[in-house]
């Protein structure tokens, strides 16, 4: 069982990622999990596989710090990343009071009282960059820039740690890494 071995001891962060099958939710949650491990945190995730991956609702849970259960309970998420706006109504119940919603939407939707909402039209950004399948990284880049990473109150990791995790995934280089980094940077530029 995981203990508290984190370099930033005491950090506990619960994140829910929501979207449709095919949007790269699974990729995003694994990327974040790998960044967490590289940062010295224990990590637990829960993924959606099977029929839902055929365009249905897909959810990943990510718990960074010393946890035992792979699932985030309703009302406990610090952060909710939503790749399809219509999922906000379904999954905003995961958010804790004072939690942050990051959503792929042209205008910020109403997420109820006590929720801080940050919206970006990641679809339009990704399409304009000729990378429609990189919406996930655009949104992640936006989130990292908007709420901060590696700092108190922000993401458990900094943008540089995500870049390193991407680099490890893509074997340290190549055009796929370049494309991924461009998408991340596009999001960062719009979140700054």
């Amino acid at each position: 069982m995981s203990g508290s071995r984190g370099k930033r001891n005491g950090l506990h962060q619960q994140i829910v990622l929501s979207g449709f099958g095919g949007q790269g939710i699974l990729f995003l949650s694994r990327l974040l999990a790998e960044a967490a491990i590289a940062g010295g945190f224990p990590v637990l995730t829960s993924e959606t596989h099977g029929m839902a991956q055929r365009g249905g609702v897909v959810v990943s849970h990510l718990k960074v710090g010393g946890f035992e259960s792979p699932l985030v309970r309703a009302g406990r998420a610090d952060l909710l990343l939503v790749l399809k706006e219509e999922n906000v109504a379904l999954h905003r119940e995961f958010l804790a009071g004072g939690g942050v919603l990051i959503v792929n939407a042209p205008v910020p939707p109403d997420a109820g009282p006590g929720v801080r909402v940050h919206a970006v039209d990641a679809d339009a950004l990704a399409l304009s960059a000729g990378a429609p399948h990189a919406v996930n990284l655009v949104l992640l880049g936006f989130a990292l820039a908007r709420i901060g990473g590696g700092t108190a109150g922000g993401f458990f990791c900094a943008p540089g740690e995500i870049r390193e995790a991407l680099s490890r995934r893509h074997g340290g280089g190549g055009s796929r890494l370049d494309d991924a980094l461009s998408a991340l940077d596009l999001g960062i530029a719009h979140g700054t």
Partner: protein
Amino acid sequence: MSDRILMQGNDAIARGLVAAGCAVAASYPGTPASEILSSIDRWRKKCGATMHVEWAVNEKVALEIAYTAAITGLRAAVSMKQVGLNVASDPLLSAAYLGVTGGFLVVSADDPGPHSSQTEQDSRLMAMMAKVPVLDPASPAQAMAFAGAGFELSEAFGVPVMLRPTTRVCHASQDVDAPPFRPPGREAARFVKDPARWAATPVFRRGLHDLLAGKIAAIAAWPATAPIRVNPDVSPVKAVVASGVAFAHARELFGELGISDRIALYQAIQPYPLHAAFIEHLLDTYTEILVLEESAPVMEMQIADRRRVRGRMTGAVPGTGELLPEIVERLLSRFAGLPNPGRALPVQGGGRRPTLCPGCAHRSSFYAIRKAAPEGIYPSDIGCYTLGINLGAVDTVLCMGAAVSQAAGFDYAHRISGGRVDIVATIGDSTFYHAGIPPLIDAVVQGARFVLVILDNGTTAMTGNQPTPGTGIGAGGETTAAVDMEGLVRACGVRFCRTANPDRLSEFVALLKEALVHARERGVAVVIARQPCAMVSLAAGGKAPDGIVITAECTGCRHCVDRFECPALVFDESTNRVRVDEMTCTGCGVCVSVCPVGAIRRE
């Protein structure tokens, strides 16, 4: 930089198996177990071990292959989803009597919820029926450790051992320290003939049953798999006994609710047979015992004193459904005498339903079936194409292979009662090989009248594109023999067997009508709808070069949206017309011939 690595539960199970010297592994894909075998192959290549790794034609064959290796003294494993264990139950129950000489693990992944299954049955009940021990991991790290521990248990008693993860273990990921691989150079396979055991007739089976009962009694005292007490320093009057991921939820909540000093918490890693001394200890020590387990009361029914036990049998724990952490929180709060945690209900279900992928040829097949037999009955089967239900072209789904037998059953039921109906059944290629052949033979012999459409996309798509016996590719990407589907269908006695590309819609509708005429007059007709899975084609070659456009002629009639349901065709409420979603359109162009007014065109 940490030396720990992220591992999915299924990947961790595979690593545990290969590291422990598993020599033969077989499986049939099924969520949530699918990734185990492909991971075994990956770890095998990484450590350079000589293994036989295969995607078997079905779970029964997979279990028999792995079991046989284990009676030659080798370590072997079979993996499947829980309904796959139903298919493999025949050899499992017999293998329990005969036992093994090498370690044998049956990995059966359950799906409480269910998230991607027909049932939320509990494989541990099957272990109980078969009288084999079962290990119930709470996390990927534990599942990895139990693979090795399972082999040791299996070899110590000469019995098959079940490893039962659930979806929340299989599809959880965690940072783990991966165990080193066992050094290569194992013993050679050695089968010692003993017909009284390996070919036991009923007269010997009674003795084997006695032997098995003795083994189970001894396993109920095996120290290595005894329950673990989380908080041994306190002496409360209440105890929680949990297994699987319900234990993980409970352990986290014990900390959050601050009840570790008030209630004893045990993890039962071997729910069957529950350790006899542990049952005695529970009943000697505690006045109330809450049992948290998924999804059947397997441990609960082994704790005999009904007055002290609370669980699924007493109604204290919901009798169906997944034990989500919100539910565990309520149960623990009530058990500890704390106030109800209030709102925080589980977030479950809802939202957009799954649908066939853009560019999927199954969509064309279903559209054509409804055109050719608009008043028909449409039995179907297990796979991506179950989603044909969205298109009104799937009326029944029972279990693997049942599309064929249900098609025949519908014909006989109508025939004897004087009715006549067109029946068009659909089955995927992998499902056809898995369980569709015996019912097809049966239908030919009985003179059943229906059309069977085999949706041949050359892969097991739903579970992540594993190869089928028709593809000529093995589990590790190696070349294998390939089965000739048309030859197989004809060899079953089918006299009408034609193959076509369903994306050529009008030709395909005409072929289906021809098949229907044959079926009405002469018996079973088979149409093989052959077009590669769009996911595979997209990965290989990308989108078609020319885009699809909607012209001003679109009347907003919704025919393409409702009857064809391609996710790339979106009805825009503001314009009352359809538009193409550039993010998802593959450019397959089948929709061009679907529009009744010709408003969908290729650029």
